[in-house]
């Protein structure tokens, strides 16, 4: 192979053929082109003329050049050019290919495997034994320290390569060190690093260098990771990290979660900008609580690694908690039953105050009733329904509850237990005994594991009636065994009763940190920060969804649960894979990164050669050149044909001059095209009018009646002619002088310009798209009117629904149409311009519908009409085929007969009058209806 710059030639001696090109030039010039036959009557005058020089015209130089180029391309192609020819990689002996296999490698794993494949191919060519090892997935024999990497033939590894996959955690320094210590023999190492600095990396490098040289491959692309977002000061703080510093960079972070339909979608998006030189970027996201609670994960857009994903857990969820206490009286704030609850819950939840009805409307997650004894039956019913649907009702006892009869005889559905009369007081001034302390929480209690401070004492409580179910329902009890907190399930929800007050009156519980932790365990509140080991003690967490290295979440399947204290201390690793863990109602996310993670780029000693990942592949260029030669030969063929006039067969006599200038123009056009293609975007600077401008100008030149294009050319033409006829009548008889009516495509055209849309319905009309519906509804809301016309006079066989009506119903399904009624006799439509009582079109039997009058509209004695002042109906629905009655042809004559004889003409006249009334109604609204007040106004003026 002969190498010339980046290009090598397989058969360089063929290039000698290029030397023959000048010879060809002379040869081609000498051969005359074929004669052109021309019909020419003037030949009679030519007879007998002789040529001065017996030599033909030469082939044009550009054609020669074209042929030269084609030939040169062919010669070059056969010489076998290759881009980036490989000079064989140096090295011999065993080869160890080491890959980090961490989450940071996942983002370009495909390129890594490509690189490994390329290295394996090289090794196979050189006949070197190879071992491929992933640091996160060390070979089994290495784990116990015995045996080194498994050196095998390179081809064998190629089939095993798909088994090596990145893991969503970083290599464990200790096991890597153990493995490195066990290495034996001498070998060369290729290390595909993920580019992050880690403990133990220098040690591993040193260990490898003892066995042979080390080459490092690393992608220069920046590595991004996402810290778990935190909730601070009413906003979510999203922090992204990058390895090392660099210039200004911008990344987008998307918050994803189930949308209203349940499908996962992007709920919010934040743009994070790394300042130059900064390795962290933070953005704050303000979100509605409903939206925020839906978020399941944050993700850096376009990054495919577990580090770029942060699963969210309860830390971001803020529950809506409604507080209800007894009716407020003048009292000290500290004595208020709600004070301590408010203090405990305010940092982590959204509190709702207000009346009972307001509270339920706000759809809270938790309702806390502090010393509320009696509820009205209606309230009770609603509260029970809410609880059954999954609400958590927490009740606190108090003097009122103790004094009431609630749950005394029979168990109240909203109380977990029956209560004994009176309750008890211990350790008070007037009672025996000491204040009671709490018993340790039982193993099946949700509070299990919480440390009970010594100073928590109970002085008074309400007592539960002994009951077979009592022990099952008790989740916390005093040292003497009396229940302190009881719980029962109601439907999907539950009711929890604290047998003490929510203030410090009966116990010191609300003063202690235990109170907050208990509320937390009950999922009343959610923890603001990552819990510590003490809080997690005694809980078991089962993985729900696990992340793989690429950031894809999968169902965890059957995996053993983890004790809480271990989980909370764990880093992502083989035993604690990153993902979402669940314990009862609480969820905890274990992410690849935590709040303290910092990414640093790997630092390599100066003598280590660091290469990029991109494997330079040999690229044979022969086919490109052959294609070029082929195209050039085709061009030559075309040009030759053009020159000899064969391209212009249709012309009876073409001239060579024209052919030549045509070819020249073609070449110029080609050059211009190439220039344009190479330089897109230029040359379209000015004089850009928006596509809809002409339409808008036409539509706003005056009052323009419009009809919806149905796609049926005949119906559209009739509608156009009908509106034209109506426009003519309006111009003749009224001061409304509409311009030429327009057809409107509801999918693409702007509707806001038209006061009225006439919409003939055909049975096979397409249903508008969601966008069109949005536009139509906006149009109806902002005062537009649509006149639907099914054009069938409601005539259906056997009283069924006509196809047009069925279509109308399907179309109208997506529209905001108010309740309808047939046009009442006192509707403004009956007297907007003419006094009419019928609304005939080509038919007069169909019923015409408009928006129904408000139910409270009453006819006042002595008034001819009801007082219907407000609102113009947004729709008029009829079936009388009005457009056909109005339609006129180009000469202003009716297009269709209506009825028969004079009666028919009368019907057409009434149809026109209805049209005039309709347009008047659209343009002036209820002005005519307001006329009802004129006598009253005049009377008042007269006084």
């Amino acid at each position, binding site marked *: 192979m002969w190498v010339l710059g980046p290009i090598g030639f397989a058969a360089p001696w063929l290039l000698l053929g290029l030397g023959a090109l000048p010879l060809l030039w002379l040869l081609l010039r000498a051969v*005359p*082109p*074929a*004669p*052109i*036959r*021309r*019909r*020419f*009557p*003037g*030949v*009679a*005058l*030519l*007879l007998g*003329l002789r*040529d*001065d*020089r*017996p*030599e*033909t*015209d030469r082939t044009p130089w550009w054609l020669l050049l074209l042929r030269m180029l084609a030939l040169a391309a062919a010669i070059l192609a056969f010489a076998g050019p290759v881009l980036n020819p490989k000079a064989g990689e140096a090295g011999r002996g065993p080869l160890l290919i080491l890959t980090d296999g961490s989450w940071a490698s996942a983002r370009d794993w495909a390129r890594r495997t490509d690189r490994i494949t390329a290295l394996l191919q090289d090794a196979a060519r050189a006949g070197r034994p190879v071992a491929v090892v992933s640091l996160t997935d060390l070979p089994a024999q290495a784990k116990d320290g015995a045996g080194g990497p498994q050196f095998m033939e390179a081809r064998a590894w190629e089939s095993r390569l798909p088994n090596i996959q990145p893991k969503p955690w970083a290599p464990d320094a200790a096991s890597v060190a153990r493995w490195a210590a066990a290495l034996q023999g001498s070998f060369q190492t290729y290390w595909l690093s993920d580019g992050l600095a880690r403990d133990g990396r220098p040690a591993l490098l040193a260990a490898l260098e003892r066995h042979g040289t080390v080459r490092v491959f690393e992608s220069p692309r920046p590595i991004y990771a996402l810290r778990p977002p935190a909730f601070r000061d009413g906003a979510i703080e999203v922090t992204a990290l990058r390895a090392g510093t660099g210039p200004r960079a911008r990344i987008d972070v998307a918050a994803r979660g189930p949308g209203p339909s349940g499908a996962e979608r992007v709920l919010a998006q934040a743009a994070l900008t790394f300042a130059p030189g900064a390795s962290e970027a933070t953005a704050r996201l303000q979100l509605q609580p409903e939206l925020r609670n839906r978020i399941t994960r944050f993700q850096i857009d376009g990054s495919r690694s577990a580090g770029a994903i942060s699963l969210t857990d309860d830390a971001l969820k803020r529950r809506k908690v409604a507080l209800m206490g007894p009716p407020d009286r003048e009292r000290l704030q500290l004595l208020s039953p709600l004070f301590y609850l408010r203090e405990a819950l305010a940092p982590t939840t959204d509190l709702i105050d207000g009346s009972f009805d307001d509270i339920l409307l706000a759809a809270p997650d938790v309702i806390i009733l502090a010393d509320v004894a009696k509820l009205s039956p209606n309230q009770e019913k609603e509260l029970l329904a809410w609880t059954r649907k999954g609400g958590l009702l927490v009740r606190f006892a108090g003097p009122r509850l103790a004094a009431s009869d609630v749950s005394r005889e029979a168990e109240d559905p909203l109380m977990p237990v029956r209560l004994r009369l009176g309750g008890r007081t211990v350790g008070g001034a007037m009672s025996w005994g000491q204040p009671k302390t709490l018993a340790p929480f039982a193993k099946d209690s949700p509070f299990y594991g919480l440390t009970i401070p010594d100073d928590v004492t109970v002085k008074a409580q309400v007592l539960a009636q002994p009951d077979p179910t009592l022990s099952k329902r008790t989740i916390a009890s005093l040292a003497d065994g009396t229940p302190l907190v009881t719980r029962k399930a109601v439907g999907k929800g539950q009711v929890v009763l604290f047998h003490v007050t929510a203030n410090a009156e009966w116990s010191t519980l609300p003063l202690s940190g235990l109170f907050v932790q208990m509320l937390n365990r009950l999922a009343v509140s959610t923890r603001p920060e990552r819990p510590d080991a003490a809080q997690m003690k005694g809980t078991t967490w089962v993985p729900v969804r696990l992340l793989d290295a690429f950031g894809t979440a999968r169902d965890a399947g059957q995996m053993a649960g983890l004790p809480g204290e271990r989980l909370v201390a764990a880093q992502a690793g083989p035993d604690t894979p990153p993902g979402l863990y669940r314990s009862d109602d609480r969820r905890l996310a274990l992410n690849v990164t935590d709040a303290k993670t910092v990414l640093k780029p790997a630092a390599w000693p100066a003598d280590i050669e660091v290469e990029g990942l991109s494997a330079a592949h040999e690229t044979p260029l022969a086919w490109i050149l052959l294609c070029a030669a082929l195209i050039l030969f085709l061009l030559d063929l075309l040009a030759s044909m053009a020159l000899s006039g064969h391209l212009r067969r*249709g*012309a*009876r*006599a073409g*001239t*060579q*001059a*024209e052919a030549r200038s045509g070819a020249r123009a073609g070449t110029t056009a080609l050059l211009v095209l190439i220039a344009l293609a190479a330089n897109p975007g230029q040359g379209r600077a000015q004089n850009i009018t928006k596509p809809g401008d002409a339409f808008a100008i036409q539509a706003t030149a005056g009052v323009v009646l419009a009809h919806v294009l149905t796609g049926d050319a005949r119906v559209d033409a009739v509608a156009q002619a009908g509106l034209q006829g109506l426009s003519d009548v309006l111009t003749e008889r009224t001061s409304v002088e509409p311009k030429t009516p327009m057809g409107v495509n509801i999918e693409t055209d702007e509707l806001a310009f038209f006061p009225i849309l006439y919409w003939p319905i055909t049975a096979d009309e397409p249903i508008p798209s969601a966008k069109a519906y949005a536009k139509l509804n906006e149009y109806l809301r902002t005062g537009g009117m649509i006149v639907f016309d099914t054009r069938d006079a409601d005539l259906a066989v056997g009283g069924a629904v006509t196809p047009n009506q069925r279509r109308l119903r399907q179309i109208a399904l997506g529209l905001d149409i108010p309740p309808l009624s047939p046009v009442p006799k006192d509707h403004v439509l009956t007297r907007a311009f003419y006094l009419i009582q019928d609304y005939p079109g080509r038919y007069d039997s169909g019923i015409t519908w408009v928006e129904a009058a408000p139910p409270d509209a009453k006819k006042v004695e002595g008034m001819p009409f009801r007082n219907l002042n407000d609102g113009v109906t947004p729709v008029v629905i009829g079936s009388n085929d009005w457009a056909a009655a109005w339609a006129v042809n180009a000469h202003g004559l009716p297009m269709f007969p209506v009825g028969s004889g004079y009666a028919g003409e009368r019907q057409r006249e009434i149809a026109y009058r209805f049209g005039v009334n309709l347009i008047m109604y659209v343009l002036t609204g209820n002005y005519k209806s307001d006329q009802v007040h004129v006598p009253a106004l005049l009377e008042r003026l007269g006084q």
Partner: protein
Amino acid sequence: MTDPAASARLRGRAETLAGSLPPLLAEAERLAASVMLGAHGRRRAGLGDEFWQYRPAHPGDEARVIDWRRSARSDAHFVREKEWQAAQSVVFWVDGSRAMDFSGDRGRPPKADRARLLALAASVLLIKGGERVGLTAPAVTPRSGNAQLLRLAMSLGGMGEAGAAGAADIEDTADYGAPQAGSLPPHGRAVFLSDFLGDPAGVEAALTRAADAGVRGALVQVLDPVEEAFPFDGRTIFESMSGALRHETLRAGDLRGRYLERLAERKDRLAALARLTGWQYLCHHSAEPPLGALLWLYHALEGGR
């Protein structure tokens, strides 16, 4: 054979063109030689439409010829005499040879189209002026009236259709045509429309014969701009329209000068011939608008001295 639609189209275009000119009332020099009635007053009493004079009634005059209104104003009887009117005969020869089918450009009609259009437009004008118009080949006897216009249009249109449609006819038709002066009415007018690229002897013979018969008229040479410019280059074989004549050259561009010389010579010869016989000569290019040529033709037939 004759496609009514084609001839109707031709006539329509011709009438459009002729509509922009005042009616042609050709002056007749030789009134006596022709006795047919027409629109040319002969400055003497005779049959016609225009009033000439009142004369006293002679015995023998029929009672119905007496103008009673004039007679009632006096005692004598008067007869109302009208001017004797006669029409001019104009005969067209439109070259139907294959050379006329040539067009140098796809968008340009062949020369024959232009020649037929000019002939018919002139005919429309003449017939409006009351003249009698005919054709030599195919022979159409000169007559006046709109029916004649229809016949002319049919004949001319049919000529074009036959030239374009029937392959057998094409074989028969010669490359170049010569006017046929045999059927010219004596002392009439004649118009020859052709490219006159063929043998000039035929034209000379026809013109001489026409001059002998007292016929005067106009030669209109219709040429395609390509024939005038000779914009050819390179190795070319030129063929006449039927392929009967051919000439091969290696460098067509070199022939241009000599071709143009010969063309100019041919034009000079035609002009001289026309001068000699009292005819008029015009060279018209099919790329130009036809109105100029029609105007010229109008004047040539009107003055024609």
